[in-house]
């Protein structure tokens, strides 16, 4: 059964999903540079992970958008192919710019600062992999009335 969410609700869930992912990444870096942190930091991290998982399930899985962006083209009709093609084109451009910007920031900071304050960590890469998969789906969910 496909869950139908209003455009407003979808947008709200997408914002929550990205926000919780962003907070998690910030926390990972925070933990990396600070050894003795209070228990609340772990709690916030776990809470953000739960928020990310829940919003992911509701906005991408239950609405069927995940299937739309991860299906073979033979399983989609011509409108769905057009829709996913547009979303994939936009997300490819956005993702490339984001990744190259991260690499540029990393390279610049590495040159300028004596201490290595910004390193590319495993959680950042995992976050980017997740982001690359949800980006086309979130472009569809953000813009279209129905899909």
């Amino acid at each position, binding site marked *: 059964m496909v869950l139908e969410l209003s455009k407003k609700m979808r947008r709200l869930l997408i914002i929550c999903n990205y926000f919780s992912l962003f907070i998690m990444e910030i926390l990972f870096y925070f933990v990396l540079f600070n050894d003795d942190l209070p228990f609340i930091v772990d709690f916030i991290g776990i809470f953000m992970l739960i928020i990310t998982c829940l919003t992911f399930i509701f906005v991408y899985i239950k609405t069927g958008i995940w299937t739309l962006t991860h299906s073979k083209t033979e399983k989609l009709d*011509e409108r769905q192919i057009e829709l996913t093609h547009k979303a994939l084109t936009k997300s490819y451009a956005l993702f490339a710019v984001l990744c190259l910007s991260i690499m540029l920031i990393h390279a610049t900071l590495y040159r300028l600062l004596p201490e290595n304050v910004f390193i590319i960590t495993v959680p950042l890469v995992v976050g980017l992999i997740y982001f690359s998969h949800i980006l086309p789906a979130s472009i569809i969910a953000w813009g279209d009335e129905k*899909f």
Partner: protein
Amino acid sequence: MKGRKLYNRIAVLRRERNLSRKMLAEKIGVNFQTVGYLEREEYNPSLDLAFRISEYFDLPIDMIFSTQPMVMMSLELLKRSEN
């Protein structure tokens, strides 16, 4: 390049035949939401899909699709019989 808007009679034809969007979608091989998009004239079908729709309703393609806003089917038939 953005194409012209195409008008159609899919909603009328579907209701005449007491079909749900899902049923029509299965017959013409598309997702049921695509039928909604077609009926609201928010999506222009490909030539192949337009032919599939015309074959399913057993009507000439120009009776279903037009680049001009659709007139009532009875008036269209009257105009055709006069010609």
